[in-house]
């Protein structure tokens, strides 16, 4: 008698597979669900075969079930599902594909980046993003010229995740895209860079026509860790959107731009408590003694978070 005896011993997958040939689509669907629950890697082969099922709901269940598995074989099955004639099946496959984590899964997906359907191109790029394979750089850069804005956005994310400085010029050029959503993704993707070129490009985006692009540019500038953009950030303190001003204040605080202190102080009187909170935090971060009177004047701010930040800032400045 062996030392370890499992409670049950049976070949689960084999047992389920027989039901995949049942004449009733409902039974086949439940068999697919059971295959997903088995978590047995050998199930992927059968799931791929089940993608040829005539019933839409069975194929949909397969696309959902494949999210439970990883690796090149799973990706191989998902690229079949993502080009399915049924939009629901294709969408479920696209979502499952984005769950892949194994870098080897990128190989079957790469050829689909140039697929004739924009939906498939976008789904492939979205899946490639997290797999971070250097081979995706070239096709992603090619997709920067895609006619579809979603595809361009996904391509930018792929390049942003790869964090290669070589791709900076291409990324910066996307800050000039016609579509605001694409410019937003590009502004966010530049955060990995510490070069002054990236900071200068983002500084230009602080005057973008779309306020959300300006907001993301202001936010990303604190990651870039370069003070080249300080004058542009200070100019953004007069932006018509408080959301942009809030992010600009945060970045100025993180970068420790002491010249901005007199321009940040008026925000302590703004109606939006989030802005007052950010201003108090930034003034503390810059540790500017000249901000003490203004901070003391707001010790009784109606918002508890603002009061907390003001006390934190005063403590920091006085401990100098």
């Amino acid at each position, binding site marked *: 008698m062996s030392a370890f005896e499992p409670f049950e011993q049976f070949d689960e997958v084999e047992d389920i597979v027989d039901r995949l040939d049942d004449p*009733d689509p409902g039974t086949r669907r*439940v068999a697919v*669900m059971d295959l997903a629950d088995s978590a047995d890697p050998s199930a992927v082969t059968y799931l791929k075969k089940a993608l040829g099922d005539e019933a839409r709901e069975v194929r949909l269940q397969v696309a959902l079930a494949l999210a439970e598995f990883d690796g090149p074989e799973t990706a191989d099955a998902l690229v079949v599902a993502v080009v399915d004639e049924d939009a629901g099946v294709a969408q479920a496959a696209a979502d499952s594909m984005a769950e892949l984590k194994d870098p080897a899964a990128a190989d079957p997906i790469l050829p689909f980046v140039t697929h004739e359907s924009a939906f498939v191109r976008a789904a492939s790029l979205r899946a490639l993003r997290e797999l971070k394979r250097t081979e995706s750089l070239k096709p992603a850069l090619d997709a920067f010229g895609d006619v579809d804005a979603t595809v361009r956005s996904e391509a930018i994310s792929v390049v942003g995740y790869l964090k290669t400085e070589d791709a900076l010029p291409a990324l910066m050029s996307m800050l000039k895209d016609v579509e605001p959503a694409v410019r937003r993704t590009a502004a966010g993707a530049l955060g990995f860079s510490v070069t002054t070129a990236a900071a200068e490009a983002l500084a230009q985006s602080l005057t973008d026509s779309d306020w959300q692009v300006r907001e993301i540019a202001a936010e990303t500038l604190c990651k870039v860790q370069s003070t080249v953009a300080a004058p542009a950030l200070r100019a953004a303190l007069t932006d018509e959107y408080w959301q942009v001003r809030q992010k600009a204040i945060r970045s100025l605080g993180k970068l420790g731009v002491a010249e901005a202190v007199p321009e940040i102080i008026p925000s302590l009187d703004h109606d939006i408590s989030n802005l007052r909170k950010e201003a108090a935090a930034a003034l503390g971060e810059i540790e500017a003694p000249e901000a003490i009177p203004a901070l003391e004047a707001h010790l009784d701010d109606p918002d508890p978070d603002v009061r907390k930040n003001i006390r934190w800032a005063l403590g920091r400045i006085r401990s100098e």
Partner: protein
Amino acid sequence: MPLAQQSSSVPVVVDDDKCIADKGCTVCVDVCPLDVLRISDQTGKAFMKYDECWYCMPCEADCPTGAVSVHIPFLLR
């Protein structure tokens, strides 16, 4: 006058035409944290056996065919 001995409506309602419990599906029974759903011996479909619902919704969200609907009392909404 007939007396109502049992409540005639429960919060979790299953559309028998959509339910595939008779094919072996037990998703709603498995996800229910209060274990109040069962598969009927007569119809083979899922139903609410005990009216102790928390209105937590996984049975409705996870049902593969969209057969389950949870009716949340107006005052809880």
